[in-house]
């Protein structure tokens, strides 16, 4: 291994790597944002939805959670263009990740809401709160504390899953890395380097999650 040679190539490839990193981060952010919005709806529908809606949403989450993310990404990429939706690989990939994210967030939200003891709702009713008020002041804030750490974890999952978009040709960090390797043949060094970058991002997210958990903990 020639460190100086690797550093030379790394310096030459800095722009594509930074661009790839930018793509990775935008893919993850978009997937998390859309996925979370959809996921909150999924979680609420699973917990409070009327029966037919609950069944439909249950079917949706079970199907998504039973399918590998890579299959979602490939299906989204191939299928959407076939039915005439002209999405770029980037858009198709983000859509697949957002759908994946929504099923995760949905389950997290449902789990958090159902974990709240029934007595909380009863106590809120007993002092005369309506259901929207009960949700806003009693259930929501308690569920949010439960959800936050797991949600931050999902964010890290999204960063990891964003690598799958390299397979449909989105020029994110991993695909850029592979391009550099195909020219420089430094596969050990550059795969290691890419892995290291991902590790740093995810480790930071994980630490942040622990911090959030501590910050929002209820004193006892």
């Amino acid at each position: 291994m020639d460190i100086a040679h690797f550093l030379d190539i790394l310096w030459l490839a800095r722009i594509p790597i930074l661009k790839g990193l930018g793509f990775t981060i935008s893919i993850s952010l978009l997937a998390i944002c859309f996925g979370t919005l959809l996921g909150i709806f999924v979680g609420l529908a699973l917990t409070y939805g009327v029966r037919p809606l609950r069944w439909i949403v249950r079917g949706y989450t079970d199907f998504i959670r039973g399918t590998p993310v890579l299959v979602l990404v490939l299906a989204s990429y191939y299928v959407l263009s076939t039915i005439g939706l002209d999405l770029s690989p980037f858009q198709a990939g983000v859509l697949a990740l957002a759908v994946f994210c929504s099923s995760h967030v949905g389950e997290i939200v449902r789990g958090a809401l159902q974990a709240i003891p029934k007595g909380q709702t009863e106590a809120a009713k007993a002092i005369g709160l309506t259901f929207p008020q009960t949700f806003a002041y009693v259930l929501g804030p308690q569920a949010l504390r439960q959800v936050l750490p797991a949600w931050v974890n999902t964010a890290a999952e999204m960063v990891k899953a964003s690598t799958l978009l390299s397979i449909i040709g989105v020029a994110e960090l991993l695909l850029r890395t592979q391009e550099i390797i195909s020219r420089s043949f430094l596969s050990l060094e550059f795969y290691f380097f890419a892995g290291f970058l991902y590790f740093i991002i995810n480790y930071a997210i994980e630490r942040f999650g622990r911090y959030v958990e501590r910050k929002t903990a209820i004193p006892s």
Partner: protein
Amino acid sequence: MPNHLLEIRDLHKSYGDVEVLKGVDCTMAQGDVISIIGSSGSGKTTMLRCINMLEEFQGGTISIDGEEIGYETLGGQRRRKKEKEIARQRALTGMAFQQFNLFPHMSAARNVMLGLMKVKKLSKDEARSIAEKWLDRVGLLARADHFPGQLSGGQQQRVAIARAIAMNPRLMLFDEVTSALDPELVNEVLQVIKSLAQDGMSMLLVTHEMRFAYEVSNRVIFMNQGRIGEEGNPREMFHKPKSERLSEFLKTSSFGER
């Protein structure tokens, strides 16, 4: 006809095929302190929960100050009142639960203030001063900014009582409020209830503390298999039970032991 504070007429309640209340009639005047005793499964907690509409009921009426709770009959059709209306009616009664049910993410003061601000629409300052008044009354003003997780069971239950009573209810409902407490914490809660009773608060208590029921209430109701088995003043009830059932129940309860 005297206007009753609480009037229950022919109350029926089932869970599926199981009928737990089989026609309960009961009236209560302003300032009454009534203890409901009976073995578990006799329907006493269910009756209390119906008064606060925490349970639906299928037959009969419950009225507070002549106002029918939870249901209305329009053109011969009995239907549930609107959620908003039920929420308003629930605030007519205050309820303390066996498991306290304090909101764990709010301080003691915040627990008391929530209903004052969101239901009574008081300002934060007004709510805070009422909360402090009641926390002082239950002996916990110094703990106003503690979270439930930082309080003992007895303290939590006292905050829960303050939370209910701060809403200025017409009637307080106590559902086995000492059953989940360690024995050494029971007394502090009973003292609070007793002092509220002495102030003339109308209350309905489901309790297993026979000695306490004897001391605090002016009337006792014995529930048996979904009906009122016997009722009367505590002296007659505990010393000269008329029915076989009640004397059986009293023998197995803690009344004789203390």
